[in-house]
């Protein structure tokens, strides 16, 4: 039977259609199965609680107690001012900062001082009980300013008392919970006619109005600049110059200037090498027409001595040859171009050194003239005094020593006359030096030898008389661990000083 063309076409068409249907079905079934399988798998996956107890592993799950001190001290930096009945003295003498007006622990007042003392010692004009510490006094405008700490209230304070009688005039306090750590206080406020700037034990800077004691501004170096509080709490005393306070936080910035009136930061010196804050205080110095601030900072791993411009904080010179873990005595300027350094905490090779600055093509270079171990000379806490081209200080053998400017020891006071870590200062050509226990000795400064003039036990059962001395108008303020006393060291016979 012959197929017509129509049949052929029809048959072909139906064959094609059959194939398409078959292909469609063949494709459709697996697709449906795959889709169903996928949906089923997703459903199964979602329905199974494969990880039933996922818990975040976070700090604090060991229930370690929170460190209490930072939290408790993280309160707003406010304090309170309390006024008392004391009156400022009429005495005009001034010792406005740590190491006095000239940063040299030498009084420049013309007041003649006694060469000898009665058997009972110089008269004690007044005394003041304090919390444990080594904070020395600043004297200005007839007032005595000092840092104090009350363990009962856990309050740190800036106290203002009369130079006449020690009666309290005002006290500015703020909560600062710290533990005993060889005393609580060890800084001296810096006072001008307008401002009092004080550094607290945990590096809190407070600026008060000198006349009223009212708060102008405050700064928390730990919180704001990541300052690491030095061991035993800081003893850096603020430097105030031309309405600016210069600080060395040693955290996120090495040195900074703050406007005293507003608290506004004027400049900051970067701290790329991460020098830590030390117990050192800044020293102003001028060399080759440039005014700068000298700071001994850092630690054994990163540290040294640096000079930064007073204008903008830029680093003018630096050396890393004086890297100490415990850096306490300040640099002593010797002439216009040298700095005497000393130390005594353990690193016996770093006893003393002399840095020399030189200028070359507008650049300041620094070199080391000499460096000697503590067996030659070293001082743990007190800064030696440069007087008439000789250095006077108590060495690691506890003896008073005199050095020439080449680092040669000219004399020592002998093991019979030792002074421990006690404070000392110079006034009216006389060296006042107190030992650990409160025995005050008057010494004639001379390169010829140890020449004691007078001696008196000014503290009965004195303990750790390490606080820096202050003197104004013939009144010497010294302290032991818990007492501050004001001594009348002026000459009863005006002009009977040993200076001829």
């Amino acid at each position: 039977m012959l197929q017509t063309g129509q049949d052929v076409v029809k048959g072909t068409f139906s064959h094609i259609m059959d194939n398409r249907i078959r292909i469609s079905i063949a494709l459709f079934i697996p697709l449906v199965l795959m889709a169903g399988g996928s949906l089923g798998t997703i459903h199964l996956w979602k329905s199974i609680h494969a990880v039933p107890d996922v818990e975040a592993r976070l700090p604090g799950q060991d229930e370690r107690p929170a460190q209490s001190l930072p939290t408790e001290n993280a309160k707003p930096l406010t304090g309170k001012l309390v006024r008392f009945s004391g009156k400022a003295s009429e005495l005009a003498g001034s010792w406005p900062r740590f190491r006095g007006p000239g940063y040299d622990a030498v009084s420049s007042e013309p007041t003649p001082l006694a060469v000898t003392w009665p058997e009972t010692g110089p008269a004690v004009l007044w005394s003041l009980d304090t919390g444990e510490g080594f904070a020395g006094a600043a004297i200005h405008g007839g007032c005595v300013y000092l840092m104090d700490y009350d363990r009962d209230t856990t309050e740190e304070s800036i106290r203002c008392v009369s130079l006449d009688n020690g009666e309290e005039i005002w006290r500015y306090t703020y909560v600062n919970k710290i533990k005993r750590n060889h005393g609580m206080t060890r800084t001296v406020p810096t006072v001008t006619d307008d401002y009092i700037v004080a550094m607290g034990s945990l590096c809190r800077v407070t600026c008060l109005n000198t006349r009223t004691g009212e708060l102008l501004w405050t700064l928390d170096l730990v919180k704001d600049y990541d300052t690491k509080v030095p061991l035993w709490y800081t003893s850096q005393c603020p430097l105030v110059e031309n309405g600016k306070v210069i600080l060395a936080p040693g955290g996120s910035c090495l040195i900074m200037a703050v406007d005293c009136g507003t608290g506004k930061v004027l400049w900051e010196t970067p701290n790329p090498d991460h020098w830590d804050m030390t117990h050192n205080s800044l020293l102003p110095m001028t060399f080759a027409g440039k005014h700068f601030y000298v700071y001994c900072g850092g630690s054994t791993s990163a540290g040294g001595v640096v000079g930064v411009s007073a204008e903008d904080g830029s680093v003018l010179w630096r050396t890393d040859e004086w890297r100490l873990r415990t850096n306490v005595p300040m640099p002593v300027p010797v002439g216009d171009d040298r700095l005497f350094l000393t130390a005594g905490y353990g690193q016996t090779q770093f006893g003393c050194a002399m840095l020399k600055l030189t200028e070359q093509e507008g650049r300041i270079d620094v070199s080391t003239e000499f460096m000697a171990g503590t067996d030659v000379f070293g001082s743990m806490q007190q800064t030696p005094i440069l007087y008439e081209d000789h250095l006077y200080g108590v060495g690691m053998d506890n003896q008073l020593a005199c050095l020439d400017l080449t680092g040669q020891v000219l004399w020592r006071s002998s093991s019979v006359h030792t002074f421990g870590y006690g404070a000392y200062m110079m006034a009216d050509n006389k060296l006042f030096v107190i030992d650990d226990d409160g025995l005050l000795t008057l010494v004639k400064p001379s390169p010829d030898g140890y020449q004691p003039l007078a001696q008196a036990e000014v503290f009965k059962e004195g303990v750790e008389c390490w606080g820096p001395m202050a003197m104004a108008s013939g009144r010497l303020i010294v302290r032991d661990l818990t007492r501050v006393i004001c001594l009348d060291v002026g000459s009863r016979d005006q002009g009977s000083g040993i200076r001829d």
Partner: protein
Amino acid sequence: MRNMTGATKSEVLIGLVIAGAIGVGVWSLVLIEHKDQASSGLGAAYQYDVSSLAYIDPDLILYDALPLVIETGYLNARSVCVDHRGQVFVAGDQTVRVFKQDGNLIRTLMSPGPSYCVTVAPDDRVFVGKKDHVDVFGPDYKLETAWPSLGQDAVITSLAVTGTQVFAADAGHREVVVYDLTGQVVTRFGQASDDQGFDGIIVPSAYFDLVLSQDGLLRVVNPGRLRVDAFTPEGQYEFPWGKPGNDIAGFCGCCNPCALAVLPDGGFVTAEKGLMRVKVYNSDGGFEGVVAGPVELQVRIEPKICRTPDECRANALDVAVDQAGDIYVLDTEHAQIRVFSKRKTND
């Protein structure tokens, strides 16, 4: 021709598939076998890398080992010190053995009970820690006296002596006992004190060393806190140094540093157990360099095998320094002393 070619291709393909399957099978078997023998199959997150822990930068090593190795002959060697004459005193077992610097045994000091530590006074009297008390030998090395016991829990692990006082580290009571030279207890310290801002000495096991440093302060290891604490001879807490950590400047492990000694320049030598390292710090506790690591000490960093608490805490180092600054390291596991001398530098 096309058919022949097609047949050939099919056969080749089938052959390749079969060969591939065989290859994969063999590879899998080898892999499984290999895995069974050498690896747990755990990823890197589950592995503890020992080699990186033991690595010490060669540039940090400041000392060289001298060829001399002193064999103490003890089963339990515990402590070493060097007197001003250079004689090496080793406390171990029930005695103290005295060696010349060349390693020859000179004499043996005997007294009842296990000897834990020894120190020699400038006047040549020898003080021996006998677990719970101190035995005193005269300059003639004859037993003079035994001081009273500090109690049955006492474990005296270190002694230091001045012209007027003897300091004993009592690990059992976690305190420093200060004696006068007649054996009277003058004071004790080491407890936590809020007044002094001191958080207390922690002594988890009997590794508790102390030394008198050149600044007149006592340096006491605080092993539980992985640091060294400074005290005045009267017991006033001064300051700490040292920090926990595996890094070379830190103290790692349990109860470290296990030993401490003073260098002639006022610096300190420390020894650590576990990850055995002997290091030098300056007089303020700043890290200076390495005396010896596991390689120089000829010890392997490997997990300790022990069954009892005493066994698990055993095998530490003790260190001593002679007047020339050479460092004597007592390996208590092998009862040997190795001597290290400061490397000479060209500059």
